[in-house]
């Protein structure tokens, strides 16, 4: 009796069971629905990023036209928005929108991409409060519930299917009295169970991976094969965890009903209760600071700055000699004074935010430690990180936008301080945002520990199951 015989036999049994066929069909339908949702969302984001990029071009060419017209003796469209002023050309009406391309596997996991902003308008007034903006227009109710995507199906529903398929993988044989018969063949209980589970794993994981790869293929996500591999690794490891758990429970020699109860209980605790309890604990022990004080601080700083503009300008010029070539501090233009006030507000905001962000980072390090208590949280984390829709990639994007805003200021501020007029000739030199996306290795590095822990769990429980199976005798 070889593994092939077991596999063939299992296939026949499975196909003969109508309930199981229905369950598998239902699961396939859910996979399709989930993937369709992800693809729709990805397309939506792609279209938006495209519109954002073309908006940049349209703004530049409109400014170009207006500047050309003025150079030929025309009048600016509004005296308050003369594009020759660096405060206007570098300000909101000349701003450049920096956009983040959707993560390459967004179709598989929406993750945080519906909540966090993926494009920012950058101009000389961009400061820390500019990052406190809402993301996409989205019904708060939908944000609260979360999307029905493949990651959701994998983390929540796949374990249930695995358990439904394997809770009685050994106990059934015993209850039907076929165990002794099977083990009278030259085959060990270990290899029978291994073959049965391998068959089921092949079926379930195969379905999920096939659907994932189909999604990747349809949306061009193969540009980053590393992420695809990471996704597959997470799906496989997480599913295996539930298979070996089922195998181990089967070695306890209880009834099928008992196995089912225990396994469903394990699912409840690991997938539903623990993440919730962890969040309560995290909220109690490490509450996240609120941002409300930021508004007050910003207000205080700007009230203060407006009254002390000259003084602030003098200090600014001292601090930034590189920005201020050729500026006479004794007769500053209105633009220079206004900039000094703006800069002072920005500095104060940076202080408040960096204090806040430092506290937040501390809390998040602690909160993130708790996820090791729940395989579901670990898997979820790796899955959305692999998809490029996790918190880390958005943080990376934000830091790039911050650097770009600095570059933007470096371009315009010297002209503001020197009260210079700008012409169309500077337009080609205005900084443009070039996204330097995460290195492919970054997500892998972040996933290394969670995946290893998950893999370690699989090995541990798997070994427990192996030892238990070694003790199984036909006479049990």
């Amino acid at each position, binding site marked *: 009796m070889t593994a092939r015989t077991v596999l063939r036999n299992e296939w026949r049994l499975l196909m003969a069971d109508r309930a199981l066929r229905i369950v598998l069909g239902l699961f396939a339908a859910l996979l399709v629905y989930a993937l369709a949702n992800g693809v729709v969302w990805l397309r939506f984001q792609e279209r938006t990023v495209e519109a*954002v990029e073309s908006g940049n071009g349209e703004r530049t060419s409109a400014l170009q036209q207006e500047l050309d017209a003025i150079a030929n003796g025309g009048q600016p469209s509004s005296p308050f928005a003369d594009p020759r002023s660096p405060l206007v050309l570098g300000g909101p009406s000349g701003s450049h929108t920096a956009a983040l391309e959707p993560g390459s596997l967004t179709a598989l996991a929406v993750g945080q991409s519906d909540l966090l902003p993926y494009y920012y308008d950058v101009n000389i007034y961009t400061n820390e409060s500019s990052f406190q903006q809402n993301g996409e227009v989205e019904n708060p109710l939908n944000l609260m519930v979360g999307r029905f995507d493949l990651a959701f199906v994998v983390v929540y529903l796949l374990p249930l299917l695995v358990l439904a398929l394997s809770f009685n993988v050994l106990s059934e044989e015993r209850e039907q009295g076929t165990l002794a018969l099977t083990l009278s063949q030259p085959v060990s209980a270990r290899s029978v169970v291994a073959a049965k589970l391998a068959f089921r794993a092949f079926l379930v994981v195969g379905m999920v991976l096939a659907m994932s790869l189909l999604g990747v293929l349809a949306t061009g996500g193969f540009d980053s094969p590393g992420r695809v591999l990471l996704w597959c690794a997470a799906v496989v490891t997480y599913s295996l965890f539930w298979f070996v758990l089922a195998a181990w429970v089967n070695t306890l020699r209880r009834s099928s009903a008992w196995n089912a109860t225990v396994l469903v209980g394990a699912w409840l605790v690991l997938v539903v209760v623990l993440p919730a309890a962890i969040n309560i604990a995290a909220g109690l022990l490490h509450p996240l600071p609120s941002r409300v004080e930021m508004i007050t601080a910003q207000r205080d700083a700007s009230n203060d700055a407006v009254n002390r503009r000259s003084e602030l300008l003098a200090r600014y010029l001292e601090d930034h000699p590189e920005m201020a070539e050729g500026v006479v501090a004794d007769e500053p233009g209105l633009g220079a004074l206004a900039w000094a006030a703006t800069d002072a507000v920005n500095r104060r905001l940076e202080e408040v935010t960096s204090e806040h962000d430092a506290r937040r980072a501390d809390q998040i390090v602690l909160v993130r430690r708790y996820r090791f208590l729940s395989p579901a949280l670990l898997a979820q984390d790796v899955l959305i990180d692999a998809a490029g829709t996790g918190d880390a990639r958005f943080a990376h994007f934000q830091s790039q936008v911050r650097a770009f805003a600095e570059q933007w200021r470096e371009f315009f501020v010297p002209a503001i301080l020197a009260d210079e007029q700008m012409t169309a000739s500077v337009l080609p030199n205005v900084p443009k945002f070039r996204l330097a996306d995460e290195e492919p290795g970054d997500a892998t590095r972040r996933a290394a520990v969670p995946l290893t822990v998950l893999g370690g769990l699989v090995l541990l429980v798997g070994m427990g199951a192996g030892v238990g199976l070694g003790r199984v005798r036909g006479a049990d």
Partner: protein
Amino acid sequence: MIRHIVRKEFTDVVRDGRFRWCSVLVGSLLLISLGHGWVQARNAQQEHAAAQATAREHWETQGEKNPHSAAHYGIYAFKPRLALSFVDEGVDPYTGTSVWLEAHRQNDFLLRPAQDATAAQRIGALTAAQVLQHLVPLLIILLTFGALASERERGTLRQLLATGIGRRELAAGKALGISGALALLLVPAALVGAAALVVASPGPAASPLARGTVLAGVYLGYFTAFLALSLAVSAWARSARTALVILLAVWVVNGLVAPRVAVDLSKWLHPTPSAFEFARTVQSEMSTGVADISPPDRDASTQRLLAEYGVERVEDLPINAVGVYLQESEEFGNRIFDRNYGALWDTFERQGVVHEMLAVAAPLLAVRTLSMGLAGTDVEQHRHFATAAETYRRDLMRQMNGDMTENSLTGDFSYAAGAELWESVPPLQYAAPTLGWVLGNRILSLLVLGAWLAGAILAAVARVRRAEVG
């Protein structure tokens, strides 16, 4: 006889180690989440109240300036946390907490707490409402799936019926016994919640106790429906195991699958524009107008004033024509904002109706809608506050433009108003909607929940009557 059944069932359940463990788990999660929610709600409310006071102070002490500069300076509004939000924080983490009320623009609410949290905190957030919506039904299932099915499997059902008790009494007795055991868990939690509300309400609300009572009623109806449904399945299923599998499947669909299916379905049926597209539409409509809404014509406005006051030159007007024009621009902008934001809110509302309709397949959706509504943390009540803040902004702008019109002349940019004007602006007083308003909005969910309750009880009665004995 029924008394004995009730007592036997109650004692059985309370003595059962599994029930004790599960109850301790659910009970402590419930109490901890209530306490945690209360502390959080109170902190947030205090913080918002303090920020609101500072914002008012900033407004009053902004110094002498032109009213229009003051209008640009504006004021911040902070959304209050309502009293019952500690039971169900609803969509609050996903709506902004504050909005800047300034001249010419209706701004979005900013600072969503969820943006500061991690992805893991998002999937596992736990409030008292979630314990009540997800874990208590699970407990009910675990207690009830064997009520009739196990008796039948053990052969004791035949014995019981041989004593002459009616099937209906037997089932009712079991239901009452289990309810009694659950009451041990839920009544104290309800009392703790009520006490927290009476002794130290974490925030303002219209009739918090009435809202709380209806909220308790809604959950009671939900639990009763689950209990009846579980009894029906237990009476119908061939074995206790089958009953458990079916009920767990119901629980998974109710709590996990249906809510998420509703999200994507609602987005397919009622798509929202992208933030970029929305901002662009507002911007273009603001600059050129749309359909029958056209931007104010400054020259026409001036001519009208000249005719009205019977003077030849703008300088001779006894009022400031710029103030009049600014107010006309505000009125124009308001119509554009109403049109766009109104359409967006309406889309959200229609998406919400999709969630409510799917409650036909999953009662959780009806209960969740009602729970958030009563706690004052649903999308509609966010809109209610947003509307109040926007109305306040419009009144503020009208007052600033009016003062400028009345007290200065056209072309006079030196006019400066002072603290007297700033203080004459009434502070933002928000009145949360009444219970009647909330329930009026939620009739669909009330009906669906009622239908579930009636359907489950009827099913239980029918199944118990036809239950096989052995």
